[in-house]
């Protein structure tokens, strides 16, 4: 009987902020363990939170074999890869000092705003090993600042965000952009004329969520994906590449999937030069539908691994940056930098609409003022096709030392 062990240890110190002051300090120290056993093409799984002994968990997993769940796929074997992406995590004391310093400056320089939420330091160690020689370990530590800001003169729940995530906290860069953004918040400006305007987003998660549904190998194979039957067809603008990207330097998450698979260069392309070149699969879906295996299994520590497993571990899809000069790409036209767009969605056939609650006017080099609320509207194939301008490395809006991107396309504006 083969056995497989997953251990996740998470520690966090969080300064909880209310009205620009720390009102609480929270410490977390959580252990989660999962065990899988494999016998005669079946899998048994058990798990627990807390430091429960392996023997107890193995016993639970063996009992779970009785459920008769098939898993006739080869385990990932003989792979050792230990990676530590931050050997010098921020201590609790350093975190609280950093938070006090930032909040003190915000209180002094921006008394017309109040700031609330979290400044935190987070550490994770995740191990996955099995009796067939798999031995993976991911260690990392990041600090993150996520503050909602509220203009004291408005009756809104909140009026915007400032955020910064990274393994180190570059205060100079943080203040440089934060001063610029907060000054822009103080400067109301009108929407530029025109029914169609360039929209810049640093959060591409809405589009990627929709693509994640359509690039799911099982949906593709069963005919329910928008892209079913379109392999090798040109779907989008030829600049666009979308890939599975498990490089923790891009996204601070484990570099392996929940079946212990490590991708070559931590990447796997699904859309290349605008063409559909792949759909994502785990071992089961690849075998069942005769599709290439892309190491896309997700799930919690004690879940059956799978591509539709848990929303808490979405597959790390990412656009590849394809353009370098945002100012030139805008050709002198003012653009809208979206800060908060909550609640929008795609229809199943790709029509898109979303209210933009907070946005800033961008002149090609800097943000110059806060825009009124509006709604943006388009269609997936237009946003990623004729109206696509490019995906750029974000060297304009410092959001921490994790590489972020700005994506730009034209959309219809509903005022």
């Amino acid at each position: 009987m083969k056995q497989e062990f997953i251990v996740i240890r998470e520690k966090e110190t969080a300064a909880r902020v209310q009205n620009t002051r720390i009102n609480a300090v929270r410490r977390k120290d959580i252990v989660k363990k999962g065990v899988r056993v494999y016998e005669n093409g079946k899998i048994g799984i058990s798990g627990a939170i807390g430091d429960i002994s392996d023997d107890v968990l193995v016993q639970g997993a063996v009992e779970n074999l009785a459920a008769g769940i098939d898993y006739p796929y080869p385990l990932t074997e003989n792979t050792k890869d230990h990676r530590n992406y931050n050997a010098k995590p921020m201590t609790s004391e350093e975190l609280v000092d950093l938070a006090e310093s930032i909040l003190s400056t915000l209180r002094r320089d921006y008394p017309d705003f109040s700031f609330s939420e979290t400044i935190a330091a987070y550490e994770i160690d995740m191990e996955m090993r099995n009796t067939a020689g798999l031995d993976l370990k991911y260690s990392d530590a990041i600090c993150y600042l996520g503050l909602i800001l509220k203009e004291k003169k408005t009756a809104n729940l909140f009026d915007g965000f400032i955020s910064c995530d990274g393994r180190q906290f570059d205060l100079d860069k943080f203040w440089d952009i934060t001063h610029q953004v907060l000054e822009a918040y103080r400067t109301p400006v009108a929407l530029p004329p025109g029914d169609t305007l360039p929209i810049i987003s640093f959060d591409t998660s809405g589009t990627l969520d929709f693509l994640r549904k359509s690039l799911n190998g099982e949906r593709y194979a069963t005919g329910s994906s928008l892209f079913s039957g379109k392999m090798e067809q040109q779907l989008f603008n030829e600049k666009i590449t979308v890939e599975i990207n498990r490089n923790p330097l891009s996204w601070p998450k484990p570099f392996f999937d929940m079946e212990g698979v490590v991708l070559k260069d931590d990447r796997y392309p699904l859309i290349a030069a605008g063409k559909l070149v792949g759909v994502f699969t785990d071992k089961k879906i690849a075998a069942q539908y005769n599709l290439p295996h892309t190491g896309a299994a997700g799930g919690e520590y004690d879940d059956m691994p799978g591509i539709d497993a848990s929303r808490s571990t979405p597959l790390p899809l990412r656009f590849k940056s394809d353009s370098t000069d945002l100012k030139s790409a805008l050709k002198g036209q003012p653009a809208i930098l979206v800060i908060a767009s909550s609640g929008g969605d795609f229809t199943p056939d790709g029509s898109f609409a979303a209210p933009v609650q907070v946005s800033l006017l961008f002149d090609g080099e800097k943000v110059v003022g806060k825009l009124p609320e509006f709604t943006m509207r388009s269609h997936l194939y237009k946003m990623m096709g004729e109206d696509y301008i490019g995906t750029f490395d974000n060297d304009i809006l410092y959001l921490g030392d994790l590489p972020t991107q700005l994506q730009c396309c034209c959309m219809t504006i509903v005022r």
Partner: protein
Amino acid sequence: MFKFPQGLYVDVRIEETFDTKISFKKLELEAQKVRTNKGAFIRIFDGNRWYYSSTTDVEGIQEHIDALAKMAAPNPDILQHPLVQAFEVHQDTLLRHDQDSVTAIPVQKKQQLMESYLALITDPAVVHHTSYYVDNKTIKSFYSSKGSAITFDKQTCGIRLTLEIACGENKDQVTVSKAAENFAGMQGLEAFITEEVNKSVAFTRDAQPVVPGEYTVLLSPEATGVFTHESFGHKSESDFMVGDETMKAEWALGKAIGQELLTIIDDGGESGGGYTPYDDEGTKAAKTEIISRGILTGRLHSAATSAALEEPLTGNARAMNFEFEPIVRMTTTYIAQGNRPLADIIAEIDDGIYVDTVKHGSGMSTFTLAPARSYKIEKGRITTPLKISVITGSVFETLAEVDAVSSEFKLVTFVGGGCGKMEQWPLPVGFGGPYTRVKKLKVQ
């Protein structure tokens, strides 16, 4: 039980959970998970700052109390602090599910129930489906240095089906969910499932793109629930109001913000997803009329916001689980039942939209509803299915646009989702209400 340090307020919340999750791909069993877990959240207050610790080491709670106490500055007057004075003290044991506990139902029986429902999905347009049965029983114990000692339980069972539908080039992914407080409540859902599958297939096959614009919108009880939660519920969470004079002035109690037909209630004592007989600070559940006959009459509070705004406690300090501190959250929030028959309300709509089911919603200054199934209303009749990306309205104006609520009324509870507030998502809540007509909303 615990040795509480002098000069500090301390509370300890211990959560013991039993969970089952049985997953399927079509008719094939995909996973069968049964777990029992325990974790604790400890809070210490010194009159100036809170110190929290979340741990899976339940045997070591005393050590966590002592470690947090070392970070705090003891305050001999802590009991006179207005916030500490606001904390209620109760000794109570409220175990409602000893007789119908999901822990006593064999996992095979739960699996068989799900298999019987999955056998009903035979329409060839449903090209694939994944699904699960899930249950949870949580026993919460709460102890405070003021003398509270409370234990209560809460239980949910539910099913969730994700249907992949393809009718030629028309495709959709549809979710069907139903929940109850015990296993018996999950029996007899055959007609519900068959109807939902049939409606979803017909919708995918026939839905047309909406012509964007402003419409009169009729909301089902489910959509009314999301609307109420997003358009006003979050505004009533008073942590947004503490220290904010503009918010206090805008949302002053006594202000008229809707027509007389509109009453909105939050009730932690209501059975279902939002059931919270004691909140996570030990405050007993209250039935709070947030809006009474169109007038703003209440807000939702934790002890901190109650003390800061000098308003009564409401039992709305809730944490997602033992990893988080309680913050102000809704419980079961709904528009009160009206007195007009649904048929009369529809008959008055000449050109409008009916929203049957909703994928998600959000509630900043502009609130949103993303409909799953919606239909055109023409000359008083519900007609063509419509594909809609999003419906939006201003939280400051829309409640005044509610001009009819029906005598038909339903509260709903789902599994597999919940309310999100910053880092704490998903928190189970209950919602629902009557059919509600809103005169004017933007539809895209």
